[in-house]
């Protein structure tokens, strides 16, 4: 068990391409941290630098207080689970799990105890004698996790471990990973491009974009208080709606005026924060779940808004309606009983308590 510290970590490739641009991150003991971001944001490179599989161009990585920059992967006391499982195809499940311990010259009895315990935790005891090719994707991923668990390392590293699984299995394995972490409590760094995985698994989520960290925080904080437009748009599915707007003041009250002239009142609780920005052209951000129909009238600070749906997507438990307003794509989450029709204007309510205003000059959320 250990803390992991990244200090001003830089990874540059030939031709001066910087994949990671001087990031700082402190990961606590027992913590489950998820690095999330789009392809090419530097999350996997960061994980591989922690593992020792990529050299660090600049900066310092410490595991358990000791700087590991020049320490080879085998001496970092970490275990990694790969996207494609990376099981040794010629070895049985048992041997795959025992391999690391055998190389480290553990006594046979100890190896056997650990492998069987890990197999019990992961529910793969009946598979121990099988070869990887005789396993399903989900079983292979369990074995890969078992291989990590038996080592009892300081840190677990997961590199998009669920990407190769089908949607149903992914949800199931996600729960398994969370259960395993609750059992073994090993410090974990998990990389994914799936924000749902990040939100459901993490104690803290690290949102990365273009080699920098956009925001670090618990999932709920990222969801409710995104720091930047990128985080606001990346976390949450469907993504947050952004509409060009202007902040105006009328008889002491603040209003967000959309490009089509619709005026939405800003809640009093936000007035002090937003007042310095009166008169500026801003982006009004609101999540689809906060742009709903009249069936959710019981909340305060609702502002009416009329939009004409272009596409209706009934999902069963909810209906998604897509609109186009002043060049912006807008999505609303409706009650499935709402009779929405394409081309027929729909009266929506914006939950202004959940609104965000973004300064388009620096993409920061105000």
């Amino acid at each position, binding site marked *: 068990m250990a803390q992991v510290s990244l200090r001003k970590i830089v990874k540059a490739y030939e031709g001066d391409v910087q994949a990671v641009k001087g990031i700082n991150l402190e990961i606590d003991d027992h913590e489950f941290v998820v690095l999330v971001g789009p392809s090419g944001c530097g999350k996997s490179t960061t994980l591989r630098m922690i593992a020792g599989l990529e050299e660090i161009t600049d900066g310092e990585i410490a595991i358990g207080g000791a700087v590991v920059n020049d320490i080879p992967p085998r001496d970092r006391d970490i275990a*990694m689970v790969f996207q494609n499982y990376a099981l040794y195809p010629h070895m049985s499940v048992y041997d795959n799990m025992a391999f690391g311990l055998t*190389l480290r010259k553990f006594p046979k009895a100890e190896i056997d105890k650990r492998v069987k315990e890990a197999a019990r935790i992961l529910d793969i005891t009946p598979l121990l004698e099988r070869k990887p090719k005789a396993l399903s994707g989900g079983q292979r991923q369990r074995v890969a996790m078992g291989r990590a668990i038996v080592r009892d390392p300081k840190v677990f590293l997961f590199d998009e471990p669920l990407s190769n699984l089908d949607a149903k299995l992914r949800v199931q394995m996600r729960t398994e990973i969370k259960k395993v972490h609750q059992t073994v409590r090993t410090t974990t760094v998990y990389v994914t491009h799936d924000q749902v995985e990040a939100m459901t698994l993490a104690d803290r989520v690290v949102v990365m974009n273009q080699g920098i960290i956009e925001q670090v925080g618990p999932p709920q904080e990222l969801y409710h208080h995104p720091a930047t437009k990128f985080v606001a748009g990346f976390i949450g599915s469907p993504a947050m709606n952004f509409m060009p707007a202007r902040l105006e003041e009328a008889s002491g009250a603040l209003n967000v005026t959309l490009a089509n002239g619709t005026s939405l009142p800003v809640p009093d609780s936000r007035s002090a924060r937003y007042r310095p920005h009166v008169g500026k052209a801003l982006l009004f951000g609101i999540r689809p779940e906060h742009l709903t129909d009249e069936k959710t009238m019981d909340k305060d600070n609702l502002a009416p808004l009329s939009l004409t749906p272009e596409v209706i997507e009934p999902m069963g438990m909810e209906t998604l309606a897509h609109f186009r307003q002043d060049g912006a794509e807008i999505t609303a989450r409706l009650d499935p009983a709402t009779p929405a029709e394409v081309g027929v204007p729909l009266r929506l309510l914006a939950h202004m308590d959940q609104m965000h205003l973004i300064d388009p000059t620096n993409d920061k959320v105000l």
Partner: protein
Amino acid sequence: MSATAAGRDIPGIYHKAGSLRSERRWAMWTAYVSLIIAAIIFLAPPFYMLVTSFKTNAEIADYSLNPWLIRSPTFEHYAAILSNPIFIRFFINSCIVTACVVVLTMVISVLAAFALARMRFWGSQVLATGVFLTYLVPDTLLFIPLYQIVGGLGLLNSVWGLVLVYPTLTVPFCTWIMIGYFASIPKELDEAALIDGANWMQMLLKIFVPVAMPGIIAATIFAFTVSWAAFVYPTAFVTTAEQMPLTIGVVSQLVRGDTFAWGQIMAGALMAALPPVIIYAFLMDYYIAGLTAGATKG
């Protein structure tokens, strides 16, 4: 023509071209005919050798008889060869040279291929291509400078001279096969091994060698075939009968001036060809899997 009529005509055109079933039948016929012709071309010489090896000398010399048929079969040529101690010597020499060359080749090739495929170092790509290019230089060009080298080392007229020079034929191609095979092994496998605590040598011996076994077997068969059947180098470097391998021993000992002991030459050549045939027969599946691995897995 109306659109409807044109629409009706289209299936007719396709029908004329032939259904999938009849096209498949046509393709099968073509394939079988081609394969039978190829098989006849390639199998006629060994069959002729087999037939001739069972004929008496008188029958071989009689041009009035059908050369493909045997009138009075005899084992005299086989008996003569097997009772001739020099022929046994040739066989032992071939075995020594081949065993040494195969071991030497595989050790060098596997180590070289692992380094070239997996250890990222400056110039590894160029080196990998260079290794293959050396294979393209024919042995008929190489034997002159190699003669100087082997002579300088005092290894002319010795099986050890052959053990030294055969790897120039086998190592480049085997290394190339192994590079392809190692490259097809996912990178995550060695990264997993590194994290599990393996050093490079453990990674090679415990992960790469077992996983790449089909490739290793394919390369081994190639090295075996090349060194067992080599002709140019032993012809150039070995002139004393005691040190000759089978390939040149049979020819040099059974042809006296312009007198050819055809029966014994054929019997000897057939027996010499037996070990590679046996090895191919048992390991053919591995051989094909090894040669195609790099191509299919990228």
